[in-house]
C-alpha cells in the first residue's frame, strides 16, 4: 500500500473538509436523483419514485459518516473527545491536577536550567580567541591563609608589581588584569553603572572585538589627567541609547575623584558579551581613579 498517497488523499480532504463534505453530499443527491428518474421510467409517480429511491439508498447519515471515516479523521475527532475528557477530569480533581502540573513544570524547568548551565559551561566553547589557552591566575598567601578558593571568593587577586612580574616572566604570551569597576553616572540623573575595568591588551588577548567603534588604544592607558574612554556592552547600548548608531563619540558625565568628569564612548561590544562577572554594562581601562579603588589599594600595598 502506498502510504504517501493515502496521506496525501487524507490531507487534501482534511484541508478542504467542507468542500469534500459538500462534494459527497452532492454526489449522493445525484445518485438518488438518477434512481428516482429510473423509478419514474418504470412507471412510478414522482413522489413514489423519490420515496423508493431514498429507501433503496438507506441511511444518508451512515453513508456520509462512513465515507468520512475513509478520510481518516476519526483520530482527530477522538483526539478532541480525549482532550475534553481529560480537561473535565482535571476540573474534577484540582488537587491531583495541580500536583501533576507542578511536578511537570518543576521537572521541565529544572531540566532546562541545568541544561543551559551545562551547555554554557561544558558544551559551548568560550567565546574568546584560543579559549583552550586562556587561563586565570590568582595569587595566594598561605601565611595569611589565603588559598585559591578564598582569593576567588574575595575577588582579590594581585598587585600591579606582582602582575608586572608575571608579565616579564615570559610564561604567558600576554597578561592582562581586570577587576570590577563600578562607577556613578551623574548626568542626566545619577545612576550606578556596573563596569569591568581591564588593563591594556585585554581586547587583543581575548579576541573580543567591538562591533561599533573601536577598542582601547595602547596610548589610552589611563593616566591621571587623561580623558576617560568607555566601551559599552550591547545590552547597555540598547537600554540607554536605544541602539543609536551615532553613540560613538558621545560623552557620559561620571563621578570622578574631584567631581564630574566626561567619559567618551568609543565602542559597543557585540550582543551577549560576558566575562567572568555577569552583566557588566561598561568596560573601562583599568586604573581609573574612581572605579578601581581596589586596584589602587593593591598598587599602593605593592
Amino acid at each position, binding site marked *: 500500500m*502506498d502510504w504517501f498517497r493515502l496521506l496525501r*488523499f487524507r490531507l487534501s480532504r482534511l484541508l478542504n473538509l467542507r468542500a469534500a463534505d459538500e462534494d459527497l453530499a452532492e*454526489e449522493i443527491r445525484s*445518485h438518488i436523483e438518477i434512481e428516482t428518474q429510473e423509478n419514474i421510467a418504470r412507471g412510478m409517480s414522482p413522489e413514489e419514485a423519490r420515496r423508493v429511491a431514498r429507501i433503496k439508498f*438507506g441511511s444518508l447519515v451512515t*453513508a456520509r459518516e462512513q465515507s468520512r471515516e*475513509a478520510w*481518516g479523521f476519526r483520530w482527530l475527532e477522538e483526539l478532541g473527545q480525549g482532550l475534553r475528557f481529560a480537561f473535565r477530569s482535571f476540573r474534577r480533581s484540582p488537587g491531583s491536577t495541580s500536583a501533576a502540573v507542578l511536578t511537570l513544570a518543576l521537572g521541565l524547568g529544572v531540566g532546562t536550567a541545568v541544561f543551559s548551565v551545562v551547555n554554557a559551561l561544558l558544551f559551548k566553547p568560550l567565546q574568546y580567541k584560543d579559549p583552550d589557552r586562556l587561563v586565570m591566575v590568582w595569587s595566594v598567601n598561605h601565611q595569611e591563609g589565603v588559598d585559591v578558593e578564598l582569593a576567588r571568593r574575595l575577588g582579590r587577586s594581585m598587585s600591579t608589581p606582582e602582575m608586572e612580574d608575571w608579565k616579564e616572566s615570559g610564561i604567558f604570551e600576554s597578561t592582562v588584569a581586570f577587576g570590577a569597576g563600578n562607577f556613578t553616572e551623574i548626568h542626566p540623573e545619577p545612576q550606578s553603572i556596573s563596569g569591568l575595568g581591564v588593563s591594556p591588551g585585554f581586547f587583543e588577548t581575548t579576541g573580543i572585538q567591538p562591533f561599533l567603534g573601536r577598542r582601547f588604544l595602547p596610548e589610552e592607558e589611563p593616566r591621571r589627567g587623561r580623558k576617560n574612554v568607555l566601551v559599552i556592552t550591547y545590552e547597555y547600548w540598547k537600554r540607554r541609547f536605544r541602539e543609536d548608531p551615532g553613540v560613538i563619540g558621545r560623552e557620559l558625565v561620571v563621578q570622578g575623584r574631584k567631581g564630574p568628569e566626561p567619559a567618551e564612548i568609543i565602542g559597543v561590544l557585540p550582543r551577549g558579551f560576558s566575562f567572568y562577572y555577569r552583566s557588566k554594562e561598561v568596560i573601562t581601562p583599568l586604573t581609573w581613579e574612581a572605579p578601581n579603588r581596589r586596584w589602587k589599594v593593591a598598587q599602593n600595598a605593592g
Partner: protein
Amino acid sequence: MTRRQSGPNRTDILQGTLDMLILRTLLFGPVHGHGIATSIEKTSDDVLQVDHGSLYPALQRLQAMGWIKAKWGLSENNRKAKYYSLTAAGKKQLSVESSRWERLTEAMARIMRPAKDET
C-alpha cells in the same frame, strides 16, 4: 439497515468483496456511483444486492488507496454525476483480488461438493 424487497434468490454482497466488484465494474471505463450499483445488480442477474449507501464509503476508501479516481461529468440523461475510473494501481489490485477470489472459490467448492454429493 433496510432489507428491501429481498426475495429468496437475492443475497447481500459478501463482506469484503464489494471493493473487488467495484474495481471489476470500472474495468470497461468510467461509471458513476449509481451506475456501479445497478451494473453489479444487473450483471449478477439481480442476485447480488448492492446496499447503495455502503457504496460511497467503499468508493472513498478505494480513492484513498489510489486505486480509482473521480471526476465530475454528465450522465446519459444530462445529469451531473461523479464518474469513477480505474488507475494503473487499481488495475493491478483487481488482478490480485480476482486471483485470490478464484483460489477462495475453488477451495470452497472443494469443501462443499462432497457434501452435496452425499445428500
